[in-house]
């Protein structure tokens, strides 16, 4: 809990990477020039617009995050501009300062009602205007910090902390999305499930630190073999991983799996007793292997891959196995009820 608080405090200390760009809106050319001079001399990037419509074009281009606008202007006035800005969605918050000579109570209230964050009289001092812009910067910095914190939390929620690959939650959510897309629009999706052969021995013999190190090195090797942006890996258990190959058929998945298997079988991990070689077993499943593609679920794909993985294990490990067509979802059944290796197509081994 205190770590979380420390993280939040650190994030809230972050400042905007660059000073916000200020868009000054006024129909008076001389006022625009004067304000541009004042604001730019304080270190802000400045854009100017002669009216509301002009200002909206700048904002649509993402050119500014602070708007300092006059109230009374021909065409679209400051209030309408505020309402238009607030009525739309933007990539980031737009801080609005109404800068006007109309400073009656009812004008001020109308300004805030329309969505302004601040209301400043044109009779105010230069120093006060600068102070108001610093407040705008502070609010935008806060928003920036919160976005970073949110992104960090989002990353943590979908990442395996040990290896840095995705976690099971991400796998279920994104594989489901990819599966739906393939079912609706056609196309393939294949996956490989893999685990380390005799991983328990590594842990029991050398301790969990070595085991953890082995898993980190393994995921690095897997990452080396995945070349497409649409290929990704998730850790779903102790030493169990799933690699999803979006848009790939099982033959492509097999080639990729074979590459991973060979790469890993050539690696060794450091232990207190010297380098130790590890191997992995892989099971492959794919949408194309199902007769009724519309009824396929994430679970049925995972079950099929798990059954193939099991076949790799009973056929001697360190190999890749493709599921046969319409493989039943029986991988987690008792061993004596699991399908025999005759149901599978072992495609590789070290022997």
């Amino acid at each position, binding site marked *: 809990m205190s770590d979380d608080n420390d993280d939040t405090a650190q994030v809230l200390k972050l400042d905007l990477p660059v000073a916000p760009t200020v868009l000054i809106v*006024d*129909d*008076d050319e*001389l*006022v625009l*020039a*004067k*304000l541009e*001079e*004042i604001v730019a*001399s304080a270190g802000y990037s400045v854009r100017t617009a002669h009216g509301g419509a002009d200002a909206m074009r700048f904002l649509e281009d993402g050119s500014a995050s602070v708007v300092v606008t*006059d109230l*009374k202007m*021909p065409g679209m006035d400051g209030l309408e501009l505020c309402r238009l800005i607030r009525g739309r969605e933007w990539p980031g918050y737009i801080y609005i300062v109404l800068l*006007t*000579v109309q400073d009656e109570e009812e004008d001020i209230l109308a300004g805030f009602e329309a969505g302004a964050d601040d209301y400043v*009289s*044109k*009779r*105010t*001092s*230069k*120093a006060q*205007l600068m102070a108001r812009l610093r407040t705008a910067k502070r609010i935008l910095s806060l928003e920036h910090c919160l976005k970073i914190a949110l992104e960090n939390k989002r990353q943590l929620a979908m990442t395996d902390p040990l290896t840095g690959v995705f976690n099971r939650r991400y796998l279920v959510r994104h594989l489901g999305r990819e599966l739906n897309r393939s079912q609706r629009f056609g196309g393939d999706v294949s996956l490989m499930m893999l685990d380390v052969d005799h991983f328990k021995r590594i842990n029991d013999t050398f301790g969990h630190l070595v085991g953890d190190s082995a898993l980190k090195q393994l995921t690095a090797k897997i990452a080396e073999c995945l070349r497409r942006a649409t290929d990704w890996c998730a850790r779903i258990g102790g030493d169990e991983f799933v690699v999803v190959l979006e848009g790939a058929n099982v033959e492509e998945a097999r080639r990729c799996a074979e590459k991973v298997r060979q790469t890993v079988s050539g690696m060794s991990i450091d232990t207190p007793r010297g380098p130790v070689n590890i191997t992995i077993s892989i099971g492959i499943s794919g949408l194309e292997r199902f007769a009724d593609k519309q009824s396929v679920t994430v679970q049925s794909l995972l079950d099929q891959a798990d059954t193939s993985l099991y076949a790799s294990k009973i056929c001697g490990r360190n190999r890749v196995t493709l599921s046969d067509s319409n493989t039943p979802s029986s991988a987690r059944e008792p061993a004596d009820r699991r399908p025999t290796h005759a149901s599978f197509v072992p495609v590789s081994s070290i022997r």
Partner: protein
Amino acid sequence: MRASVHAREIPQRIKAREESLAKSFIQRARNDVNRFREMLERARQGDLTPLSEIERLAHTIHGAGAIFGYPAISASGRAIERLAAQLVAGRDPPGEHMVIGQLAEITEQLALEVEMACGIPPDAGPTLQPRIG
């Protein structure tokens, strides 16, 4: 050495630019006063169509006078803006001539203030507190 020269040049450049803008404002206000006189003359003769333009120009003087640090000019602009708006809204048709007379008086007051402001830097102008500029 180079940095210190550069550091001196920036405030000088800003100051020169601000003085130039203030001069442009005063020159424009002079022109606006002349336009007010012409338009009010037409109004006296029964042509009230220029009143919207008077209101618009006066609003500009009201805002820009405040921004450039000339509160008296800004206040006169405000007074003209309000009276012109009253006539445009047609709130008091029998009192139109009286209001036009008031507008002429304030215009001459504005003319005086603009002439007084000539040569007076805005920061040294008759402001109660440091203004923008």
